[in-house]
């Protein structure tokens, strides 16, 4: 294989290495030099987790062939510390809590560094603009802007270094600004995420995924791939020794497809090889013969009589139906002055944590299988894996590596089982790092809902009856659908006292990407419908939407929708405080005109400024010949 001699300076030290010519600068830093501070979040120049300085200019190292950086001076996050101590910007990130999952931080810190190098007096708008090429999924960015401003002011002598110190280092911690325990490891790039880890003899895994939403697998032939030099193991469902199946609620998903695929992206077979390219080549040699089946992509179609069955043991395609019944809805609706109806739809949402899934698995000297991955559910995964592998549970060890964002999306055991099979087969460490595309195609999403809402109210705004019928697209496997249905049902009707209630949350199998846990676990979808619907009702009743809610809140002694008696209720106080802080303009929501009049008042933010950087346009000559 061809090689390329690379010479450059990395964080002040000369580097000389002979490498594969096709590496990107990011690969060179991470895989060859093991400077893993710079991360790969997307590989397409979108997220900025890989931003480094090349000859003093901030660049995205995933967009740079390493040969382009020949003879350059590279600065990465690991070069920021000064004499082994956090620099001012690092301390500021620590102070404001700008580092949460930490995965975007190496790139974000470099962008903030670039902003202050370009203009040591940069204002908020310029900082925003200069950080525009870097994505964070945890913070909402405010803490990063604050940190950059704080560092700027300290560096300019406007504030003393004291402002970067932790408040009440000895406690009490409640009500004071405490540092996250792992922040310093994140602002230095020292923390190792699963994809940063390496071991001697480590193999690289790649996974063959289904191109079809629903198909029978007639033939799966891996012999040619297995015969390839550099391939150490090819695994399929045939390598499962125990009882195959995992899931958060029911074990309906095989580690690798077993006779059938149920969604585009479902894992079928995997290769562990000496390097990534060999593993990719081997995937192309695996022969799969499919017989395509009718694919169900809409929930309505899945529950029609005679619909194609996705899981043999679930003939009605219903994963879980959670009903709640209280009072007499028919009577309540009949007695109401108005009955207002609407249907609401929510869509699938990808978590898009900046760290794509990754795992490193190996056997300890005593034969214990160890899997390091950013799993949000290690104990559960361990139990499942022991059953799947037919191993005693004390021989399976899951280590939760730092999670570069999860938001529920890392609860499912989508790849840990595949890693385990590969390690047990070739008895060498195996690492698997998803690309962004793989992460999106293979991981569970937020459940799309359709919600039919019917609310009966009196003229004075009191709710008489509520009927909520929700269909949720659970996708091809259960994952967390069962729990999501419970949460959606319990919280559907909102924090309102309603005597007559009928709620149905129905999770349905389809051939779409599986739906799973995602921030709020079903509550968001039903709350979205409820609060939209109350706004709609307020309009019809010509009532301030705030008043409508106040009228109907739970009070002390009320029963919840699932008949829990409420001892103390602070809903109204919380609501009123929030309204005060928001400077709520009273009146019907459709009576206030096109623009809000409450912005840019004292104690309130100005309208959003999403414009071009105020490039000093006055310095662009306007055409007068000079």
């Amino acid at each position, binding site marked *: 294989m061809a090689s390329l001699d690379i010479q450059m300076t990395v964080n002040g030290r000369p580097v000389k290495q002979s490498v594969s010519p096709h590496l990107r600068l990011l690969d060179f830093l991470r895989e060859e030099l093991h400077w893993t501070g710079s991360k790969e979040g997307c590989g397409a120049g979108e997220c*900025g987790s890989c931003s480094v300085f090349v000859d003093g200019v901030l660049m995205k190292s995933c967009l740079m062939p390493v040969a382009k950086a020949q003879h350059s001076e590279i600065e990465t996050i690991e070069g920021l510390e000064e004499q082994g101590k956090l620099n001012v910007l690092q301390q500021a990130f620590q102070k404001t809590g700008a580092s949460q999952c930490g995965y975007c931080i190496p790139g974000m810190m470099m962008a903030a560094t670039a902003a202050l190098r370009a203009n040591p007096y940069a204002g908020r708008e310029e900082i925003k603009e200069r950080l525009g090429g870097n994505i964070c999924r945890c913070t909402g960015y405010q803490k990063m802007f604050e940190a950059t401003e704080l560092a700027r002011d300290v560096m300019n002598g406007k504030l003393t270094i004291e402002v970067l110190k932790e408040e009440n280092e000895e406690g009490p911690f409640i009500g004071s600004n405490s540092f996250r325990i792992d922040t310093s490891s994140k602002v230095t790039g020292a923390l190792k995420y699963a994809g940063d880890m390496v071991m001697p003899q480590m193999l690289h895994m790649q996974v063959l995924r289904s191109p079809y939403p629903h198909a029978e697998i007639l033939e799966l032939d891996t012999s040619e791939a297995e015969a390839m030099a550099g391939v150490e193991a090819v695994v399929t469902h045939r390598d499962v020794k125990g009882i195959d199946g995992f899931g958060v609620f029911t074990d309906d998903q095989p580690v690798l497809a077993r006779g059938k695929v149920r969604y585009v992206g479902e894992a079928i077979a995997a290769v562990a090889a000496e390097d990534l390219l060999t593993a990719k080549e081997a995937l192309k040699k695996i022969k799969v013969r499919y017989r395509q089946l009718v694919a169900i992509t809409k929930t309505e179609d899945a529950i029609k009589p005679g619909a194609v069955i996705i899981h043999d043991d679930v003939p009605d395609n219903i994963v879980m139906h959670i009903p709640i019944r209280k009072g007499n809805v028919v009577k309540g609706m009949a007695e109401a002055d108005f009955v207002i109806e609407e249907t609401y739809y929510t869509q699938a949402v990808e978590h898009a944590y900046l760290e794509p899934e990754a795992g490193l698995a190996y056997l300890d000297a005593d034969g214990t299988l160890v899997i390091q991955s950013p799993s949000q559910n290690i104990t559960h995964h361990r139990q499942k894996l022991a059953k799947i592998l037919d191993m005693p549970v004390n021989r399976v060890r899951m280590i939760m590596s730092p999670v570069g964002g999860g938001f529920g999306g890392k609860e499912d055991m989508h790849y840990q089982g595949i890693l385990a099979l590969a390690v047990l087969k070739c008895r060498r460490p195996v690492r698997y790092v998803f690309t962004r595309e793989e992460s999106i195609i293979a991981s569970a999403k937020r459940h799309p809902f359709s919600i039919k809402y019917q609310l009966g109210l009196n003229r004075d705004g009191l709710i008489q009856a509520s009927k909520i019928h929700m269909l949720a697209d659970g996708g091809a496997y259960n994952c967390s659908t069962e729990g999501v249905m419970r949460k959606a049902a319990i919280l559907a009707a909102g924090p309102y006292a309603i005597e007559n209630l009928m709620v149905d949350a129905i999770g349905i199998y389809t051939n779409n990407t599986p739906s799973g846990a995602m921030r709020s676990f079903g509550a968001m979808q039903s709350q979205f419908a409820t609060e939209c619907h109350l706004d709609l009702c307020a309009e019809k009743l010509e009532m301030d939407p705030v008043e409508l809610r106040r009228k109907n809140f739970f009070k002390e002694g009320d029963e919840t929708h699932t008949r829990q008696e409420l001892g103390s209720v602070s809903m109204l106080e919380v609501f009123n405080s929030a309204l005060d802080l928001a400077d709520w303009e009273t009146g019907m929501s459709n009576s206030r005109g096109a623009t809000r009049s409450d912005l840019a008042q004292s104690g309130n933010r100005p309208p959003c400024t999403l414009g071009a950087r105020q490039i000093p346009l006055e310095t662009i000559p306007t055409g007068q010949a000079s």
Partner: protein
Amino acid sequence: MLYYDQYHVPETLDEAFDLMHTNGGNYKVLAGATDLLPWAREGRGGDVNYESMIDISKINDLSKWQLQGKRINLGANVTISQLLNNPFLRKHIPVMAKSAVWFADDQIREQATLGGNLVNASPAADATPPMLAMNAELRLERKQKGKIIHRKLPLDEFLTGPGKTRLEAGELVTRVECDSMLGYGSAFEKVGHRRSLVLSTVCLAALVSLSDDGQVFEDVRLALGGVGPVPIRLKESEACLISQPIDSDLIDKSAVLAVKHIQSRTRQEYRREVVYNFVKRGILGACKDLNTTFADIDTDMKHRGNYG
């Protein structure tokens, strides 16, 4: 994933052409690489293998620019960040700076080149509408029988469809020539899903020169991107203003004329509203750029709805 065995960094055009010749077709020419690497991924180009990469970004001649009479001659390797920051370029072709500030982000602008943006032929390329408005012409060179020969093509003839151009095998775009816009006011409008790193849903370049008293359009140039297979000049919209006074109704008419060019596959209704308002705002912005004040002109963005 993009992989290859050889990575060549020629320092002269001659060297580049020789490398293209010796690699007999199994090569890829790249400059900034900012479109190439994201393309060679699952769902787009997939795993892409070439024998050789030929990186032309170190050919110094292609990074230079000069004034030739009333035209600016730019090397294809001029980066987007040079267009944004270089005082000479800001003076002569300021609309490029106004476009560049919306281009990707600070970091990609350092790598991405003008030539690359034009050759890539994205329907939403941000550099193309301003270049069309400045009557850009490309210099295409290749080596034949040991001699470098060239031809010139106007940019609008060069671009033929999404990702498609009249670039022939063995040919390189080496230079871009366009009018110096001294004396013109300019504006660039762009909208996309977010501020940074976003493809234009619609983008527009507007250039205007006015009579000495500032009351009559001497010249108007408008070019639109993101609404069809290739960015286009809005000749009819221009014609209805040239030699006419600055007038609300005429500007409205000019904006309405632009709307019919929308041929995008999606969101046509939305784009109609945007294009109408962008043309209006672009023209007025370019006038304002010349410090013109206009008392009776309606400057509000609005939902017009009916484009007759």
